[in-house]
C-alpha cells in the first residue's frame, strides 16, 4: 500500500477508535440513566427514594393482579426473581398486560413502599407463535401463560 494511503487508513481507524472509546466511556458513566427502568432489586437495595419519579420494570407475578370491581383501580406485584414490588395503578392497562408478562410502570414509591404508577406499559418478548402451535404445546404451557 502507498505510504500516504496507509497514513490515511491509520487516521481513519484512529477516528473510529477514538469516537468509539469516547461514546463507550460516556455510555458507561450514564448507564443508570440509559436504563429505562429500575428492577425490583434496586428498590430492595434502597436505591430508590420515596417520591422520586422513576420507572419500575419486571414480570407480573402470577395470581397477584387484584382489580377493584367498582373502579379502574388495579394492584399487582412485579418481580425480577430477586425482589418484589407492589404496584398500584388507576387507568386502562395495555392489551398485552397479563400475569407472567413484563411491564414497565412510571410513577413513584409512597411511604408504605407501594409503587404508585401513573402509566403502565406492556413489555412483550421476542418469541412469536401462531395460536394453534401454542395450543398443541399442551397444558403446562397454557397454564403457565394464564
Amino acid at each position, binding site marked *: 500500500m502507498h505510504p500516504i494511503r496507509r497514513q490515511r487508513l491509520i487516521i481513519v481507524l484512529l477516528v473510529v477508535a477514538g469516537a468509539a472509546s469516547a461514546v463507550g466511556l460516556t455510555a458507561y458513566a450514564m448507564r443508570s440513566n440509559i436504563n429505562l427502568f429500575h428492577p425490583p432489586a434496586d428498590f430492595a437495595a434502597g436505591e430508590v427514594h420515596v417520591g422520586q419519579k422513576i420507572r419500575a420494570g419486571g414480570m407480573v407475578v402470577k395470581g397477584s393482579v387484584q382489580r377493584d370491581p367498582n373502579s379502574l383501580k388495579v394492584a399487582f406485584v412485579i418481580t425480577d426473581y430477586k425482589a418484589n414490588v407492589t404496584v398500584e395503578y388507576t387507568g386502562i392497562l395495555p392489551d*398485552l398486560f397479563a400475569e407472567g408478562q413484563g411491564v414497565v410502570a412510571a410513577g413513584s414509591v409512597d411511604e408504605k413502599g407501594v409503587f404508585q404508577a401513573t402509566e403502565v406499559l406492556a413489555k412483550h418478548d421476542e418469541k412469536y407463535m401462531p395460536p394453534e402451535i401454542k395450543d398443541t404445546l399442551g397444558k403446562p404451557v397454557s397454564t403457565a401463560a394464564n
Partner: protein
Amino acid sequence: MWSFFHKLGSPRWFYQISGKFLPWLAIIAAVALVTGAVWGLLYAPQDFRQGNSFRIIYIHVPASAVAMAGYMVMASAGAISLIWRMKVAEMVLKCAAPIGAALTFLALVTGSIWGRPTWGTWWVWDARVTSVLVLFFLYMSIIALYEAFENKQAATKACAVLSLVGVVNIPIIYYSVNWWFSLHQPATLKIVGETTMPSSMLRPLLIMIFGFYVFYALALLLHVRSEILYRERTTQWVRDLLMSRKART
C-alpha cells in the same frame, strides 16, 4: 481483485456495468417484496398474543435492518473516499444518505404504530428507540453537511469523517436491548443462536428482508448513476451517451 477495485473507481465503467444490473435488480426486488408482503400480511399465521398487529414486523424489521446496513455501506464509502479518493465512493457516500434516512424514518414510524397497541404508547425514550432516532439524525446531518459546503471536495471530506464517527452508533443500536433495560424486546433473528419464530412466520420475513436489500441496491445504483451523469456532464463519454439516446428517440 485489485484491477476490479481500480475499475470500480472509474465512473464511466461503473455507469456501464451498473446499467446491466438494473433490470434484474428491479425484477427481483418487485417479486420478493410482493411475495413477502402478500404472504406475510395475508397468509402467515397470527401471533398468539399480539394477534394481527404483529404483522407490521414484515415492514418494521426489514426497514430497520437495511437502514443499519445502509449506514455501513455509507460509512465504508466514506472510508474509501478518504483513503483512496475514489470518485465513485464519494458519490455513494452522498447518495446513500437520503435512502438511509427514508428507511430509518420508515422504521421509526412503523415502530411507533406497533408500539401503540402492544406497549401502550407511541413513543418511549428507551435505549433502542433513542439510538435509532440518533441514526436518523446522523443521516439527516450528513445530508445537511454536504449541502452546507460550497466546495464539494471539502463537503465530501467532512461527510466522510462524520459518517465514520457515526459508525459507533450501529453496535449500540444492535446491542442496546441486551446492554440496558429497555421496553423494546431483544432480537428475534440473531446472528448466533436460535430464531424464536416458527418457519411459517419466518419465511415471509426473510423474503421481505431480502427484498428490502435488493430494493436498497437498486435505489442506490439509480441515485449514483444520476450523480455520475451530473458530475461528468462535461466529459465526452456523457455527451456521446446523451447524443446516442437522442438519436434513438
